[in-house]
């Protein structure tokens, strides 16, 4: 493994890197810029059928009858399935979600029937020909209401709408701390549904061979776990001991949306099974909006207190989460929320409980940050309130409470590298906190902690890599990682290229196919750079050692005198042997050897114990966002003037891609803060299109400044930590805090729409003055 | 290989088809099974701007026995001829010939008898891709002025008629019905062949072969077809022969021998009748004599238009002629059809 000497030497040799730390273009960018990259949209198999799903017309109803006669009679229709026709395939974390509903629907999104036809238009028509008779049931849409005894039950067999989930912890003594605290705040915050809006809609193709081995082409972030899910579906179909192969085409964005397997994937499998033909299900945009899972909405109650020096004494939070009609991984977001709740800033006494509640709404799922944005919105808003109550400058207050290297938090998270103080510093300096400002302009900041060294959600947090080299010194890396646009292929290529002394162009990273690529638990928790990076680095080191040994034998020079760089071995600065030549020699020789190595890396992190204690990540990422806003007090509209995002990333392996993650995360966060919401009216998605779901446009783009704080983490590959999710975590509270700073109103419910701001202003001071001079300058603000 | 572009018509009846032929003239080809024509089109040997499909002309797809004999529509599939019991029973030579075309079963479900009779002549220097042909001068058949198949060159085309069904049908005195928009004519099948390599059929551009009439079997008659090829299927004949023998009381009263695949048209051997008439049927010595005659006659025509050596093919004419005549005579005497004869 990595020897300590080399690790310790890292900081010193940093300048000598040839590819690490360079702004290298994404390895897949040219294909994407020329239209060559193939997405699920672009794939077609011979004889392929097109599947389509019929969804419920009611949020909650008995299914009396599903009439499929007309659909079946339509020429071109090959298979029609209803809940009565199929074995009980069940999805989700609790397996409470039947693939096709029989007897009862529990949300508008419920799948009632599915068809496969020779043409997408025929499939569409067939769906319209299915007659379903429903008997409407009373429905429940508010999670707090759903907890009341008289509420209709979403799953009768559970006797309650409250999920039996153990989300409750108490470290230290919060009640005692409350007595000690000098300043206290207590507030309710809420967030609503937002959705991923991946530009490439969801889709899958399922294909059985004649021995019933299954290949699924799908957009997934979890190929190995998807393989397992599909295997289970096969088992229920009575198909045992068959291979399941998952092939990922180019993925048009993930953001957590592909962290589970979904009805459309399993439906494609069933349709393919019954039709005995490949079946593709591809969502249209409207379907993408209504039938994929959004971010979990939350209601949060938070109390926090500090002593008179401003040191946090306790944090007491409880949440109600709208689980929707079924339980997916979204219901486990409290496990991640625990991280900021217990460990964002030093806070000795923490109490937290969360209730996940069934409703007849759509069910939620993982989305970038996995609960962290919701929790951080409440925490960081309340920090500002507490600082104000204590009469301490907001920046100072955060400095006082900042996490520091070497801390062990109440939950048992071991903080190793920690650049939070530097992040706070960078933001406060850049935005010049404390200086007087013009009317309606304010600044705000908020910080984050996130897992940066994997996250042990499952028993394993591992990732495998296989590396082989060819006659020409070219390197093939087979990784368990999943690149869905974030650039993991490029990062892995850089890590391997650096270690093997070759160029990034020499390295081809292959991640698309479970038949070829090693096992991995998926692209989640910002773990890929850290875990897959370390895995690749370990494999590259094995190759490197063998290359050195061989080269030493070939040249007669001692291994420690050989330097591997620029595709060759150097002795005292002079090239003596090209790698390619060495490799050819090793192949074209009697009893030659092949250059190949594998490595499985499982980070030294821990599963959470019974009381949720445990160091879930090998290291943690920190960051602080600062924002300057201008509020149009007549309209309530918020304009972002400046934005700075400072992140402790360990090491920036590729600053170009790192910037991309931050800029993208920030704009997604701004949307979360200001414009985005799935508008649900009694369980029905009212804005299932880009026109009314306000994903921000280029006109709204913010030129955010990404500040990189490098803390060179001991465990990270070349010192790097994860950065995929953090960009969108503290955005909403930073903006909410800036709005408060600008106009003295605090919005506690996301998104912060102009209506909410204006209503709050009106509530605050009754009337609004609309200076005729002020608004003439900045008409753009309103647009 | 792609087909060049053309327009496609599928007339609903013969009248319409003949109308189309009349209006399109020489730019048009009749498409029956397509097994020969489409290959030629792919090779760029012919480039009709119009194809008139016989697919919908059910009137041309009928085979039936009449008082006068056998009436075969030009678009009757080879497989249908083979499956027609009377052919098996009474015209074993025809059965043998049709079976020998291409490969049994597959091509037979597409190929038609009319198509087989009306196929263009073949030559190893002509029936090739454009790419192949581009390496040489253009030959007579392709519109140039030389012949590679004839030693020392020639101002005539020396391609061969490769229809397997023509020799036996001519030997049986079959007639063909030729139709155009304004005219119908019936003539002996041999008159369909011009013996001009460049344009081996006597059909006018607006004419179409519609029917083949085979005389009714007479008591004491026998037919046989022989084909020599390297492979048992999907091969063209090096030499083929169709023989018809009429006997009366064990003696030959009338006989015809037609050699295929050697000349620009099916080659009828004139001396046969004179030599064999009134001899006992199956008289080996006489047959040998005739076979030599046939070889000598054929020798004047056989050109280097196939890959096999001219000398070998010439010699084989006698062998194949002899076998055909012998088997025809046996059948004449035994009065057995194809199936019983096996």
């Amino acid at each position: 493994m990595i020897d300590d000497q080399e690790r310790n030497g890292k900081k010193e040799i940093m300048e000598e890197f040839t590819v690490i730390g360079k702004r290298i273009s994404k390895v897949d960018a040219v294909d994407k810029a020329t239209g060559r990259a193939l997405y699920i949209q672009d794939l077609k198999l011979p004889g392929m059928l097109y599947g389509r799903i019929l969804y419920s017309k009611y949020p909650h109803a008995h299914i009396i009858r599903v009439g499929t006669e007309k659909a079946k009679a339509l020429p071109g229709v090959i298979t029609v399935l209803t809940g009565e026709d199929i074995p009980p395939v069940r999805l989700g974390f609790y397996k409470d979600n039947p693939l096709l509903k029989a007897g009862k629907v529990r949300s508008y999104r419920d799948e009632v029937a599915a068809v496969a036809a020779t043409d997408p238009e025929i499939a569409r028509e067939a769906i319209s020909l299915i007659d379903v008779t429903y008997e409407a049931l009373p429905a429940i849409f508010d999670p707090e209401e759903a907890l009341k005894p008289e509420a209709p039950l979403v799953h009768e067999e559970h006797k309650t709408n409250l999920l039996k989930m153990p989300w409750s912890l108490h470290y230290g003594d919060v009640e005692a701390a409350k007595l000690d605290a000098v300043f206290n705040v207590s507030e309710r915050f809420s967030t609503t549904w937002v959705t991923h809006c991946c530009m490439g809609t969801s889709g899958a193709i399922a294909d059985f061979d004649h021995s019933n081995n299954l290949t699924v082409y799908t957009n997934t972030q979890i190929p190995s776990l998807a393989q397992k899910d599909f295997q289970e579906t096969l088992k229920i179909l009575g198909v045992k001991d068959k291979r399941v192969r998952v092939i990922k085409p180019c993925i048009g964005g993930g953001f957590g949306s592909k962290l589970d397997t979904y009805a459309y994937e399993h439906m494609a499998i069933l349709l393919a099974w019954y039709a005995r033909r490949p079946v593709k299900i591809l969502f249209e945009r409207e379907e993408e909006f209504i039938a994929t899972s959004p971010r979990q909405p939350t209601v949060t109650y938070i109390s926090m207190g500090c002593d008179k020096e401003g040191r946090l004494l306790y944090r007491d939070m409880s949440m109600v989460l709208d689980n929707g009609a079924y339980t997916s991984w979204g219901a486990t977001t409290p496990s991640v929320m625990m991280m900021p709740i217990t460990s964002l800033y030093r806070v000795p006494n923490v109490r937290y409980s969360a209730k996940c509640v069934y409703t007849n709404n759509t069910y939620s799922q993982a989305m970038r940050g996995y609960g962290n944005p919701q929790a951080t919105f409440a925490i960081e808003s309340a920090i500002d309130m507490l600082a104000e109550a204590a009469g301490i400058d907001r920046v100072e207050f955060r400095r006082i409470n900042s996490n520091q290297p070497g801390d062990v938090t109440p939950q048992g998270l071991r903080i190793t590298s920690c650049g939070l103080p530097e992040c706070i510093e960078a933001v406060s300096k850049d935005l010049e906190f404390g200086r007087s400002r013009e009317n309606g302009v304010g600044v705000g900041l908020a910080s984050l902690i996130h897992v940066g060294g994997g996250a042990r959600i499952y028993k394993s947090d591992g990732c495998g890599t296989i590396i082989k080299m060819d006659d020409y010194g070219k390197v093939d890396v087979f990784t368990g990682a999943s690149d869905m646009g974030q650039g993991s292929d490029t990062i892995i290529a850089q890590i391997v290229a650096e270690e093997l002394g070759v160029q990034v162009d020499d390295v081809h990273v292959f991640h698309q196919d479970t038949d070829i690529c090693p096992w991995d638990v998926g692209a989640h928790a910002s773990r890929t750079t850290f875990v897959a990076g370390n895995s690749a680095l370990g494999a590259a080191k094995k190759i490197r050692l063998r290359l050195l040994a061989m080269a030493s034998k070939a040249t007669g020079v001692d291994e420690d005198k050989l330097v591997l760089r620029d595709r060759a071995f150097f002795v005292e600065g002079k090239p003596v042997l090209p790698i390619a030549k060495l490799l050819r020699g090793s192949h074209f020789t009697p009893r030659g050897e092949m250059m190949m190595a594998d490595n499985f890396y499982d980070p030294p992190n821990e599963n959470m114990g019974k009381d949720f204690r445990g160091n879930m990540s090998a290291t943690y990422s920190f960051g602080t966002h600062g924002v300057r806003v201008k509020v149009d007090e007549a309209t309530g509209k918020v304009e972002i003037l400046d934005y700075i995002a400072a992140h402790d990333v360990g090491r920036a392996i590729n600053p170009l891609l790192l910037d991309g993650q931050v800029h993208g995360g920030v704009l997604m966060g701004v949307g979360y803060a200001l414009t985005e919401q799935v508008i649900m009216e009694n369980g029905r998605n009212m804005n299932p299109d880009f026109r009314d779901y306000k994903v921000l446009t280029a006109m709204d783009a913010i030129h955010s400044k990404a500040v990189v704080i490098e803390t060179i983490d001991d465990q990270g590959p070349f010192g790097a930590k994860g950065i995929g999710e953090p960009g969108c975590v503290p955005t909403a509270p930073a903006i909410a805090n800036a709005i408060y700073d600008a106009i003295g109103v605090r919005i506690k419910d996301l998104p912060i729409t102009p209506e909410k701001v204006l209503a709050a202003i009106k509530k605050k001071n009754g009337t609004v003055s609309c200076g005729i001079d002020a608004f003439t300058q900045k008409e753009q603000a309103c647009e | 290989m792609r087909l060049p572009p053309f327009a496609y018509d599928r007339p609903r009846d013969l009248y319409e088809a003949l109308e189309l032929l009349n209006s399109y003239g020489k730019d048009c080809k009749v498409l029956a099974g397509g097994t020969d024509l489409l290959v030629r089109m792919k090779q760029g040997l012919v480039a009709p701007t119009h194809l008139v499909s016989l697919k919908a002309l059910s009137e041309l797809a009928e085979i039936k026995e009449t008082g006068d004999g056998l009436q075969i529509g030009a678009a009757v599939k080879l497989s249908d001829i083979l499956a027609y019991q009377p052919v098996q029973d009474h015209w074993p030579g025809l059965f043998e010939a049709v079976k020998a075309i291409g490969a049994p079963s597959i091509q037979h479900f597409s190929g038609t008898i009319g198509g087989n009779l009306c196929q263009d002549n073949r030559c190893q220097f002509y029936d090739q891709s454009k790419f192949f042909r581009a390496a040489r001068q253009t030959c007579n058949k392709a519109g140039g002025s030389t012949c590679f198949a004839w030693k020392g060159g020639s101002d005539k085309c020396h391609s061969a008629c490769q229809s397997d069904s023509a020799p036996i049908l001519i030997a049986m005195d079959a007639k063909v019905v030729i139709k155009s928009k304004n005219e119908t004519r019936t003539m002996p099948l041999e008159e369909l062949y011009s013996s001009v390599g460049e344009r081996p059929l006597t059909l006018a551009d607006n004419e179409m072969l519609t029917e083949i009439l085979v005389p009714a079997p007479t008591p004491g008659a026998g037919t046989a077809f022989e084909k020599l090829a390297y492979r048992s299927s999907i091969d063209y004949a090096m030499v083929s022969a169709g023989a018809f023998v009429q006997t009366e009381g064990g003696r030959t009263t009338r006989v015809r021998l037609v050699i295929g695949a050697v000349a620009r048209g099916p080659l009828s051997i004139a001396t046969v009748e004179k030599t064999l008439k009134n001899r006992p049927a199956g008289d080996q010595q006489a047959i040998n004599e005739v076979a030599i005659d046939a070889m000598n006659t054929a020798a004047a025509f056989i050109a280097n238009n196939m890959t096999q050596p001219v000398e070998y093919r010439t010699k084989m004419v006698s062998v194949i002629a002899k076998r055909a005549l012998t088997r025809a005579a046996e059948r004449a005497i035994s009065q057995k059809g194809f199936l019983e004869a096996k």
Partner: protein
Amino acid sequence: MKKFKYLIPKTLDEAVSLNQSHEGSAIYVAGGTDVMVKIKSGKLAPDYLISLKHIGVGSQLGVNRETGALHIGGLVTHRTLETSSLIRLQYPIIHDAVQRIGSTQIRNVATIGGNLVNAVPSADGAIPLIALDARVNIYGSAGERTVDLVHFFEGPGQTVMDRGEIVTEIVVPKQPSRTGGAYQKFGRRAAMELPLIGVGVLITLEEGSNRCAKARITLGVAAPTPIRTLSAERYLVGKEITENTLNEAGKLAAEESRVRDSVRGLAWYRREMVEVLVQRMGVKCLQRIKETEAL
């Protein structure tokens, strides 16, 4: 999606007669950006689409030298209007509106006639044109007729047009000197928006004073059709244009609006925004008058 035939008439009369011969089963299409979406979603299911793109009329954009009136062909795209210096300099209120309709891709294709005929309550194209007292020339089997744009709309998706009629031209009369106009679409994002509210204000000042000679205050999404707020307009005429008078006009306009709650916004907020934006657009009108005079 329903299948249809796409007919390409070469003249206006041919288009009209094609429509007549496919009575009830045909609709006209120009840029097609709305029609296509409606067909895809099943809201429209015509057997025939009659393209107006090749009829040879309706693409003119210019000022009639004699009358000084601005003529905009029904088939002029929003992009043409957006990039026209004539529009930008002399009719900035129109420019305000068209540059924010859909995206560049949509504006490159979608036509002003289509925007009017669509008759959505938010029709961005219509609000400034109504403020400018535009009239619409309509052609059909009965010949040509002209209606004031303000009377053109009858309800969501409904206009005064008879079946088979085509908008050939929009005519904006010459505006008096010292006229300034401004339009604002108010939405949640900076682009790709259907507005929460759209406000157009056009003010003509008396010579040598700040007194209002003529006022137009037009609103989109404030009622089932684009509307003029007559009480607010009447209030302003004869008064000095000041923060206070504009303020009052804004209040009157807000009162007169018939806004309602929808997914895109709440009524109370829309009413507030009418008030705010009438003021702001009023100020902008003054600014533009000043700028013009400074030239």
